[in-house]
């Protein structure tokens, strides 16, 4: 019996029969369909996914004409985080001239707005210089990261300590105060970077601390777009599901807790976001085929129902890619091709 070599969601190699592969693709799309209350993939789409996974090549790619735009999170960090002795301006040039990046992003290594606020001058200085020697559009990016506003890292009581004590009212109050401070930091930092020439601001891994995190990004976007209507704001999510850490927060009358990508996207659109990035988490004990089918099913309604360009997150552990420190090109290229050719989205 023919065996298809593929990987699990943790990156380890496995093999499957043709019927096991088909079953995993069907189960993956059904999981997303049931959770998100969205259509599952059609037979033709499942057949296309099946062909992508059956292809014995190490690497697959989209057909000519289907190419899309790449945007990045932590783009210029990725080189010096390897221990390679380069600076961010070198990295911009490498990504532009050597890697063929369509856009690029820079940010502070700590990658949260709270941390950047205290060294904004240095961030402005380096971005301004990078913009002189590069041609591609440049985002400045960071995470709302509401976790760092809680004690002991931040000024407010820690909801993760209050909730187990049954202090729900206090936990909610602490999160509401954190939202106010995070919005101020995000607006202040984004303003400073835009005023030295950034082409766009990337609110990345939004919702990582649950509904207050998502609310902070939506509010900051609205303020920034009122201040600078021409500013490009990309909002990338952290998960397919907004965790209800507070549970009662709303934006435009819509409760944030429990929202799936197609509804996250609608609120992003209302807030003034220019590019939306849905993130679908990979499940490590399921196959890559299951994860890709599930991720594609979640992203497709965003593309079909929204007016915004959609750049799905397909970094480590999201968008059907495995959770592995060294991402295998066979698995990533299959997730890349599948996401582009099934959803017809605008970028990754």
């Amino acid at each position, binding site marked *: 019996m023919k065996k298809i070599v593929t990987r699990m969601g943790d990156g380890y190699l496995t093999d499957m029969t043709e019927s096991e592969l088909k079953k995993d693709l069907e189960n993956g799309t059904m999981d997303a369909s049931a959770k998100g209350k969205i259509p599952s993939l059609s037979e033709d789409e499942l057949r296309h996914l099946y062909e992508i996974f059956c292809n014995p090549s190490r690497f697959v790619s989209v057909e000519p004409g289907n190419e*899309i*735009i790449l945007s990045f999170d932590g783009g210029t960090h990725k080189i010096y985080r390897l221990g390679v002795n380069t600076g961010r301006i070198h990295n911009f040039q490498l*990504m*532009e*001239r050597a890697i*063929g990046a369509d856009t690029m992003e820079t940010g502070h290594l700590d990658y949260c707005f709270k941390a950047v606020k205290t060294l904004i001058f240095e961030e402005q200085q380096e971005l301004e210089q990078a913009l002189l020697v590069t041609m591609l*559009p440049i985002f400045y990016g960071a995470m709302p990261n509401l976790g760092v506003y809680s004690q002991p890292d931040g000024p407010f009581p820690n909801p993760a300590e209050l909730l187990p004590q049954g202090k729900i009212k206090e936990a909610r109050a602490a999160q509401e105060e954190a939202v106010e401070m995070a919005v101020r930091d995000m607006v202040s930092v984004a303003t400073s970077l835009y005023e030295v*020439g950034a082409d766009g601001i990337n609110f990345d891994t939004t919702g990582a601390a649950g509904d207050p995190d998502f609310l902070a990004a939506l509010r900051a976007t609205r303020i920034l777009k009122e201040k600078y209507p021409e500013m490009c704001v990309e909002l990338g999510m952290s998960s397919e599901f907004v965790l209800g850490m507070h549970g009662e927060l709303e934006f435009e009358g819509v409760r944030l807790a429990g929202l799936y990508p197609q509804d996250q996207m609608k609120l992003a659109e209302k807030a003034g976001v220019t590019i939306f990035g849905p993130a679908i988490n990979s499940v490590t004990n399921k196959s890559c085929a299951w994860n890709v089918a599930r991720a594609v099913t979640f992203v497709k309604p965003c593309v079909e129902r929204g007016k915004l*360009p959609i750049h799905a997150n397909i970094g480590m552990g999201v968008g059907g*890619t495995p959770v592995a420190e060294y991402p295998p090109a066979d698995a990533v290229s299959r997730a890349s091709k599948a996401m582009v050719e099934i959803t017809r989205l605008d970028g990754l």
Partner: protein
Amino acid sequence: MGMAITHSIASGMGGVRTAGDLVGRMQMTRGMKIREAKEYVAGKLRVSVADLSDPVTMAEVRGDLDLGRVRSIPKFSKGIDAKFRIAELLGIEINCVNLFKQRVGRKF
């Protein structure tokens, strides 16, 4: 980096090797979806949509229009000066170009 390189080859437009930066700018400045952005840029460059992702054709087109290329060629536009030309060609505002004009105190 493995992630970025894989996506770049598997599905990316190719950045300044092709017209990826130009199509990206239309998404960022006008909120265009991919098809509309490609058609807009192809129209401005007077090439077909298929040409936009071809590095051989686009190297010639970018060279002819002096929009900046992968290689930093002496006497040709690169960096901020290429972006002046890109803004003019695409009919868009580029933030750092406008700030540069303000700094040198000129209206182009």
